[in-house]
């Protein structure tokens, strides 16, 4: 008969590591950064690299657009298996569609199934030199490439422009949220903007990239890797840190067929479904969760997620932020480590890491009191939405 701990199916994060986060391309490749993060995360968990027998990543390089080089632009499971030559890997997976929660979900399932004992999940990101733009537009992709609109920034800009006009909002309404997230990032040693505040005037004077998105609404590309070590709850109890239990983890990809781009879909539909399941399965709700970590590669994503997750109604996020997130009366800690706007473009793995570190009680002067449940909302609430709850034991 299986032991109770195994049967309860709980999986916990037991180790976390960041490499240094740098803005410029460095001699450290994505492969070497990933290796360093995995080894340090194992050490953080009180393990040796040789103890790692499960590997999972979401390797799509954000700027690679399908042409990335393994080791330079991302770090595959094949590469890590080679580099971790002492490890006896019994399970691995490389997720090509989804987001950073996808390899985490795979690792949770593999650990529950007994396919491995200690799984490393990482994300390695690289600043790539910008490719020389082409002047040959002839391929009509239907998604804007032939018309000079194939950047995610431009698509998010159009979604945001629509939102601002739908609900009578402006950039001024976004300023307090971005400055708040940056202030929290300034206190995080694992942030590209550590020690650097952003004030309201600087935000409003920011160079515009694609209206209404300014430079400070978009995360900064960085060279870095983040790794987490996961194991079953029974094993976790013998390791040095308070286990950060992952449960539940829900994902949804919503498609309305081949529309032009996912940003033209209902901007909260997928997120609503994911959030409803997260709250129902965890027994925690918007009013009782201790903190949230929300994907903020583009600042308006935070507004969309707050609405999708039921913190407020559609069009009400700016008021919710003013009343509940920033200022002296704030009740909802949000992106406590600085998110991607403060930490850099770590594509959501930083949000999971921050939730874990808060639950473990390892956040130094930004540590919250009595943290039991931290919700993570990842990706886009328009389509590839993901959410998980990181909880203290018991």
């Amino acid at each position, binding site marked *: 008969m299986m032991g109770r701990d195994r049967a309860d199916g709980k999986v916990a994060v037991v180790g976390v590591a960041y490499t240094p986060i740098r803005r410029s391309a460095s001699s450290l490749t994505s492969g070497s950064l990933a290796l360093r993060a995995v080894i340090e995360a194992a050490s953080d968990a009180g393990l040796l690299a040789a103890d790692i027998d499960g590997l999972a990543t979401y390797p799509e390089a954000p700027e690679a*657009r399908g042409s990335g080089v393994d080791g330079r632009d991302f770090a595959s499971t094949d590469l890590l298996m080679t580099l971790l030559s002492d490890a006896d890997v019994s399970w691995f997976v490389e997720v090509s569609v989804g987001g950073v929660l996808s390899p985490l979900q795979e690792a949770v399932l593999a650990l529950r199934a007994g396919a491995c004992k200690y799984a490393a999940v990482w994300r390695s990101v690289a600043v790539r030199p910008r*490719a020389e*733009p*082409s*002047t*040959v*537009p*002839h*391929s*009509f*992709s*239907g*998604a*804007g*490439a*032939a*018309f*000079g*609109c*194939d*950047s995610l*920034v*431009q698509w998010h*800009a*159009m*979604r945001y*422009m*629509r939102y601002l*006009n*739908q609900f009578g909002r402006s950039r001024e309404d976004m300023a307090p949220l971005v400055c708040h997230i940056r202030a929290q990032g300034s206190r995080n040693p694992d942030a590209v903007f550590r020690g650097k505040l952003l004030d309201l005037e600087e935000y409003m004077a920011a*160079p*515009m*990239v*694609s*209206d*209404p*998105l300014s430079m400070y609404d978009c995360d900064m590309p960085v060279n870095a890797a983040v790794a987490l070590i996961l194991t079953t709850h029974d094993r976790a109890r013998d390791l040095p840190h308070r286990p950060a239990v992952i449960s539940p983890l829900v994902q949804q990809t919503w498609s*309305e*067929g*081949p*529309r*032009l*781009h996912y940003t*033209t879909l209902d901007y909260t539909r997928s997120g609503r479904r994911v959030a409803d399941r997260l709250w129902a399965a965890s027994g925690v709700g918007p009013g009782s969760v201790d903190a949230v970590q929300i994907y903020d590669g583009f600042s308006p994503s935070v507004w969309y997620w707050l609405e999708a997750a039921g913190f407020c109604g559609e069009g009400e996020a700016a008021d919710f932020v003013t009343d509940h997130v920033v200022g002296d009366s704030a009740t909802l800690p949000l992106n406590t480590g600085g998110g991607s706007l403060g930490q850099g473009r770590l594509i959501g793995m930083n949000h999971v890491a921050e939730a874990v570190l808060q639950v473990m009680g390892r956040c130094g002067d930004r540590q919250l009191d009595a943290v039991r449940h931290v919700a993570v909302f990842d990706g886009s609430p328009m389509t590839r939405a993901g959410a998980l709850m990181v909880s203290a034991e018991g």
Partner: protein
Amino acid sequence: MHPVRAVESNGEPSAITPAAFDSLFWDAAARHQLVVLRCKHCGRYRYSQGGGCENCAHVDFQVRAVSGLASLWSWTVTRRQLARVVIWDCPYLVTCAELVEQPGLMLVTSCPLDLADPTTLHLEMPLQVAFAANPRTGLEMPYFVPRTS
């Protein structure tokens, strides 16, 4: 505006490849005509290519001329070169227009700011297609302006 006329011929292949649609699209644009793919089985329009019709899963499409009338879904003024293909010097206006032929049938186009003033735009405003010669691409390129009639 040139008169709208049918694009497809009797010898039209049953499946239109992306490359074939590219040339049909730009050939039509050269005649100041906007075309779109239409499912031969159920009549649903689309711009995206590959895979079956999202309504009936049939794979045979034809190329159809559309009215060029649309409403404004959203827009952005791009102030830094972000795209893989340089079409206009920055800043330029990118418009996402929902064609009147079918809800959700959207086309993204762009134009320099002297052809359309972004400060006059508002959501859902009626638009119509126009065409401008692009010196970089050598193509007549469709873009959308506020509807005048």
